[in-house]
């Protein structure tokens, strides 16, 4: 059974889309990430134009994040104060990204910037996470119990001004740290059309030092706000959000999300982190390979400037 997507201007098999949505929903439930960083490449692989894939991906991740945050609110596994600061940084970042996006597009290098950004970021984060989780698992085996890291490690981060207390997270750190992370993730979200959970979750654990149990819910708050702003901005500026595509993906993801949550509950925190690290590294590896391997065709084409105006004047 196929469905015609009015904005992507192509028809795709509904079951394939539902399966993609399901995969994203499962990951979202498991790791508390939106899954946009996987969804966008999957859609491009199906033949959806990259701009539509990115914008619709942002729209799609809102749904599982909303169900996720509602359950986090019920279980009180969310730091609202931290979340609010992340959101402020995130909104500023996504606004800045619109400007950067148009600059890169004029230079014809938007694809390169996105791919390189992904590879560097995912490679670094995935690598660090992987090493850390392996170390944690070893320690656990050696000690035979829950490892207890040092409670407080002083780095230059603790020397930053504007220190604030975050009672839920039991932290006393500079507000600039979460605001900066939020800003960075916001920029990336705008450029790549992703929620940014895959960057946010590790950054909150390793840079801010938040308890892992609170990170997922808190990052979902940021994902929702930033994805919503990206969706609206992309709709407004590029008409590239396909609601029909998003609806089918959302349907698939919502059915699968609870299974992800249930599966995640049976795993230990470091096992979860090692799985996420492997996933992130796999995506980074795939993108790096595409950058350096000889392309099948050196030439590519796309509609010239202002295709939107040309279409609407019909």
């Amino acid at each position, binding site marked *: 059974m196929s469905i015609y997507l009015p904005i992507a201007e192509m028809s795709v098999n509904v079951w394939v889309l539902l399966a993609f949505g399901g995969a994203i929903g499962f990951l979202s439930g498991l790791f508390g990430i939106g899954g946009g960083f996987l969804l966008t490449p999957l859609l491009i692989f199906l033949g959806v134009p990259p701009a539509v894939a990115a914008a619709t991906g942002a729209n799609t991740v809102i*749904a599982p994040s*909303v169900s996720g945050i*509602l359950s986090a609110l019920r279980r009180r596994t969310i730091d609202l104060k931290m979340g609010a600061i992340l959101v402020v940084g995130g909104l500023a970042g996504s606004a800045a990204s619109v400007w950067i996006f148009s600059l890169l597009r004029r230079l014809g290098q938007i694809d390169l910037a996105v791919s390189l950004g992904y590879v560097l970021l995912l490679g670094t984060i995935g690598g660090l996470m992987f090493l850390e989780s392996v170390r944690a698992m070893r320690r656990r085996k050696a000690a035979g119990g829950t490892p207890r890291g040092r409670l407080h490690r002083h780095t230059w981060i603790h020397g930053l001004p504007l220190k604030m207390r975050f009672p839920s997270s039991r932290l006393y750190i500079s507000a600039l740290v979460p605001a900066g992370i939020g800003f960075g993730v916001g920029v990336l979200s705008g450029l790549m059309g992703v929620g940014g959970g895959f960057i946010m979750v590790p950054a909150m654990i390793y840079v801010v030092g938040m308890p892992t149990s609170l990170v997922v819910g808190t990052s979902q708050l940021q994902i929702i706000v930033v994805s919503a702003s990206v969706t*609206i901005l992309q*709709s407004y500026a590029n008409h590239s959000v396909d609601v029909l595509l*998003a609806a089918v993906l959302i349907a698939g993801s*919502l059915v699968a999300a609870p299974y992800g949550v249930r599966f995640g509950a049976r795993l230990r925190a470091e096992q979860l982190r090692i799985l996420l690290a492997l996933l992130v590294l796999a995506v980074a590896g795939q993108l790096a390979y595409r950058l350096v391997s000889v392309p099948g065709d050196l030439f*590519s*084409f796309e*509609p010239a400037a202002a295709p939107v105006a040309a279409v609407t004047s019909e």
Partner: protein
Amino acid sequence: MKLRVLLLALALIGVSAVPARAQALVADLSEHLIAITTGFSGTDVLLFGSTEGEGEVIVILRGPDTPVVVRRKERIAGIWINRDQVTFSGAPSFYRIAASRPLEEITTPELRAKHQIGIDQIRVLPDRRLPPEILAEFRAGLLRNKVRQGFYAEEVGRVSFLGPRLFRTRIYLPANVPPGAYTVEALLVQGGEVIAAQTTPMFVSKVGIGAEVYDFAHRYAAVYGLVAVLVAAFAGWGAGAVFRKV
């Protein structure tokens, strides 16, 4: 908008129904409006007609001309990067051709060039002066990509004659057929010359929910974005509520 399209269609039919030589060639399509519905997964369009006297028939289907940017990748520091780019105008968004006999047997190179018969004859205009070999490379790159994505086809379809006069051909429009105003040109060729020609318009447009969504997305872009967000958020909330009870 639909009314305007219809009026334009009628006007075009009126203009184009006058063949080069009176009634030497008459052709029409099974459908002038190809509706892309939500379930659209490609369709066939049938062109049929009759000829007066000897000759072979060539049918060319062209989508609306859309300017395209063609980019070439180059390896810089081990990474493949888009370097040079050329903007072409005049390239049809979609191109199909069919003939009653192999093109080389019934046409001369000059005729093929004049009527843009065959994808290697499609004329595209670059946005600036370029050395011919560079231009040829970019043009070939564009055509190759268009063929790979199914917008152009290298194969020449079959125009079959039913008896001495009546002919017909079936052209397949794939699921990714770009919407817009198409032209279907039927040429009657004799001794390497076109002795009669007829151009028939054809419209490919989205109808139903797809068309409404597309229209809404372009007319009220910000509201559309807001609705998209609300739908997603509501779906997430609804699912959360359902699965909590289960």
